[in-house]
Structure formats: C-alpha cells, structure tokens
C-alpha cells in the first residue's frame, strides 16, 4: 500500500498540532527557564514543518505518484486472507489469552496461521500441538513466566 507523500504530510501535521495542543496544559517549573512542554513542543513543530514539506512534495508529484497505489498482494485473496489472519490472531491473543488461557489460544493461532499459509492440515495440526506445548514448557516451567491457564485452570500442571 503506497500512499502519496501528501497524505503522510497531513497526518504528521495533525499529529504535530495535537501534540502542540496537549503540551499547552503542561505545568511550568518555578525558577526554571524550561518545563516538560518544551521538548515535545519542539518535536511537534518539527513534525508540522516536515509534514508541510511532504505535502508540497506529494502535491507536486501527484501526477507521477498518484494518491494511492496498491501492491500486488491486494489482488490475491490468498495473501489478503493471510494478512487478515495474522493481524486478527495477534488481536485475538491480546483479547482472549487471559480468559481462554495460553494453551488453547496458542493452538488456535498456530493452526489458523499455518492453514492460511497453505501448510498441509495434518502438518499444521502437529505443529500447533507440539509448538504450543514446547513453548509453554520453555516459558512457563523453565523461565517461570506466568502464562495464563484460563479455562484449563482446573487441570493446570
């Protein structure tokens, strides 16, 4: 996905403006020439200036560059699906790992991702089971990371 530089420029100006607005409310430190607002304020000014330059550059190149150019993968349902599953599985882990537990969450993520990447179903199943157990053993047992048990709390080992 290639966006015109001007789009990034506008986003940067918006970000810079937001930061400048936010630092207005920061307190001054009595007896000191500078406070917590100065440094982010300077960065925000920089973002606005570079944003403006990008807008100018993007506008000049709009004939060559266009506003939006999609990469090849967008026309390939297989690749779009793979990307969707990848991003969804990370979100799924963030949302569900605690209540569902690490073992089921990891198994589902690996299985889904392997299948969408065209790993044979039997191999995918084996990979999902073995890798989940190995990673769980390594991190939970050896490194003592408190991976959540979730629904399997009753059978925790």
């Amino acid at each position, binding site marked *: *996905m*290639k966006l015109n*530089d001007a789009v*990034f420029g506008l986003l*940067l100006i918006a*970000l810079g403006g937001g*930061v400048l607005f*936010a*630092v207005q409310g*920061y*307190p001054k*430190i009595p007896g*000191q*020439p*500078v*406070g*917590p607002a*100065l*440094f*982010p304020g300077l*960065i*925000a000014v*920089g*973002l606005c200036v*570079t*944003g403006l*330059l*990008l807008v100018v*550059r993007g506008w000049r190149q709009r004939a060559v560059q266009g506003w939006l150019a999609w*990469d*090849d*993968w967008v026309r390939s349902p297989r*690749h779009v699906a*793979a*990307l969707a599953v*990848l*991003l969804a*599985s*990370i979100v799924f882990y*963030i949302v569900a790992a*605690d209540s569902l537990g*690490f073992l089921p969450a*990891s198994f589902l*993520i*690996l299985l889904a*991702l*392997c299948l969408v*990447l*065209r*790993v044979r179903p039997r*191999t995918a199943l084996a*990979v999902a089971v073995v*890798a*989940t157990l190995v*990673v769980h053993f390594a*991190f939970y047992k050896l*490194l003592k*990371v*408190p*991976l959540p048990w979730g629904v399997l709390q009753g059978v925790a080992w």
Partner: protein
Amino acid sequence: MSAALLQAFGMVFEPVTLMAIVGAALFGLFVGAVPGLTATMATALLVPVTFFMPPIPAIAAMVTATAMAIFSGDIPGCLLRIPGTPASAAYTDEAYAMTRKGQAETALGAGLVFSAVGGLFGTVVLILAAPTLAEFALNFSSFEYFWLVLLGLTCAIFITADKPLKGLVTLLLGLLVACVGLGNPAGHPRFTLGNAELMGGIGMIPMMIGMFAISEVIRYVVDTSPPAELVVEKVGNVLKGQWQLARRYPVQILRGSTLGTAVGALPGAGADIAAWMSYAMSKKFSKEPQKFGTGHVEGIVESGAANNSALAGAWIPALVFGIPGDSITAIVIGVLYMKNMNPGPTLFTTNPQNIYAVFLLFILANLVMVPLGLLCIKAAKRILQVPRNVLMPLILLFCLVGTFAINNSIFDVGIMLAAGVIAYVLEANRFPIAPAILGVVLGGMLEENFITSMIKSNGDLTAFFMRPIAAGLAVATLLVWFLPPLLRLVRGRRVAAA
C-alpha cells in the same frame, strides 16, 4: 588491569557463557541463512531469552548470533540469489554469478573467511578505540552530550536515507515516542491518555520486537514473489584457494574492514550500508572494474569483510556513549539497561572486567565463526528447504510469548502489534526505520542533556557553544545539516554563471 582481564576470562569461559555462545551461533547461522529473517530480527528474538540470563552470557548470545547471521546471509545470496540478510544484498548478484560459473565454493569461502577477518579487524579497533574514547568522554558535561547525541541523530538521517526528509520524519516520531510517560526531567506524565500502563513509557523491547520481527512476518505473508530455485546440488571444499585470495587482495581486505568499522561506528548506519559502500568503493578502485557483476570475487572479499567489521564498529559509540551505531546495538543497549550495565564512560572505570569480557566475546565469536560456518554451509541445502510457512507462525508465537515475558503485560503485546504495523507501513512507503529506533533509544538522553544544559545556563543558548569540545561538536552537527544545501547552491551558481 590484569586482575580485571583474568576476571573477564573467567566470566567468558564459564560453561553457561560457552553454552550461550554455541546456542546463539547455531541460532544466528540459521536465522541469517533463511531469507526474510534478518540479523536484527535474530537480536530482537533473543531479547526475551537473554532477559533470563546473567549479563555476560546475554551479551555473548547477542554478539555471536549477529556475527553469524551477517555471515550466513551470504549463503542464500550465493545459492538462491536472495540475500539472507540485507547486509548481503550488495554482492548477492555477484555471488550468484559466481555460482552460475561453478565457483560457488570460492564465493561462499570468501564470504566466510573474510567475514571472520573483517570481524576481527573491527574487534581490534573496538579494543583500541573504546577505552581511549571513554577516558576522553569522562570530562564531558551535558553540553557535550547534547551535541554528541544530536550529531549522532543527524548522521542517522543523512547516511541511511537517500531522502533525508523521510529519515527526519521517522526520527521525530521516535523522539516523540520517547516522550511518553513520566520519565522526563520534570516527572510530568506526558501523553499517557489516562492509561496507567503508559505512565512508565512505551516499552522499548516490545516496540523493537514489533518493528523488527512482526513487520518481517507481515512482509512475508503479503509477499507474492515466486519461490526461488536452488542451483547447486553439492558444495565442495570452500576453504580451497582462500589463502591465495588473501595474498591477492590485502589492500581490499584492509580497506573494506576500515570502511566497515567506520560506517558501523556512525550512528544509524550498520552492516548493510557498510557492504553497499565498500562494494562500490571496491569497484571504483579495482584494476579490473569491468569484471564486477560477472562473478568476480574481489568485491565479495572487500564488502564481506566490511559488513562484519561494521558489527564491532557499532559497539564503539554504544559502549562509550550509549549511542547505538546501528539497529542491532540499539536493541543491545536496551538489554544492557535491563541488566544494570548502563553504557557510558563510567562502565570502563567501574567495571572494566565487563568491558574486557565484551572484547573477548567478540574475538571468540569471530573465531568460532569459521568451523561453525563450515558446518552451516554443509547443511545449507537443508536449511534453505525449511518451510517458511511453518517457520513464520512459530516466530509469531515466540514474539507473543517473548513480549509478554518481559513485563508479564498483555498491554506490551498491543505495543508490539502497533509498532509492527506502523513499521511495515512506513517501510512500504520508503520511510527508513533506523532513525526511528535511534530516536526512541536516544530521546530521553537528548532531552535530559538539553534541559540540564538549559537550566545550567539559565536559558542562555550561547552557553551551548562556550566549551571547546561542545563548540566543535556543534560545528560538526551544523555542517552536516547545512553543508550539502550550501554546496548545491554554490554549484548551481557556478553552472548558472558558466
């Protein structure tokens, strides 16, 4: 000194450290040899593991893994015409052309032997330069540090990117990210959006795992290029003829190693830039430049030495000033802070044994590279056949668990995801990532030294130019910013006058 050196030997030759070296070496060789997995990614993936290790084995693992990965990136370049890591990209076509001519052994052997030579050269410079610089840096005040950091960030923008504007953008974004949280001189919560997790700032490790591992996984799943064909069935003795090459190209080896170390030491530019620059240099000064690109070993010798020497070079500013020389040392600095081995000149005086241990580790890593590299070349066919569609889900799982493990925080996993997506989108639109990571790592240091200096001088900006070294660094920084446009202006005038 000798007591500290002995102590360093003791730390390095402990069984745990040696095990870490061997394990990390095999890991690094594998990651480097699989196209799409980079040396930086190897370092990022190692962080969650090193988190649970004592400092010296942790450093050993990272030093060894990166050195191996930079070498083994040559293998798929030579056999598949796909660089295993970006650092091999400069001479991939050359190496592949040699393979087509039936000289795969020479190309791989040159990559291996001169990687080790370059790495050792960089290590010698590190050993000689770092302590001297550290002694010098002990006298630095906040003014010098402010300019030093600014000079480093400036170099990062102008060296890495052909478009400095986009480098400046990602640098500013990195600096802004560093502002989040309570960790500023005034202790005021900034940009926390009322979120308690953001009070402590955005975690550096989750962010780096996102930027360097998740973004690569994203790039893999949307990659539509067809799989490459292996042209070589069997690789013979790769060490044959390497001694003759060393005798024929001594100047090239020295030049590549020197340039590589220097480029590595400059913040923001690492092994990949070093390889591109020295390949170009090799061609320019060669007696037979017409042979370049047709399967000529000279450029491989020179840039193969350069990319490994850059690794050691990058550690010079990292250890002495806490300013990373490349993305890998940016991650390493994060780990050093976690291990309470804060980089800086005092590290050399208070804990010299740790510094000596780092030196020893570099020597050791470059020595074990040769035998283990030979093994890796033997196993190359197998490694290149590892199904990446199984590997990538495993890497994702490892990122999820590894990120969670640092703080036991699921919020960090969210940071990882966001950083990965943003890094992917930025890179797809030709924004360089290295300045962003430097901004994140150095943002706190830049602000702290800036604010301290401002308070010391009571807001008087001329104080920034009053101390001699500070003034020198200031001039250097301003020159990097303003010399190129000035030169362009002058040249434009001259053209117009003519």
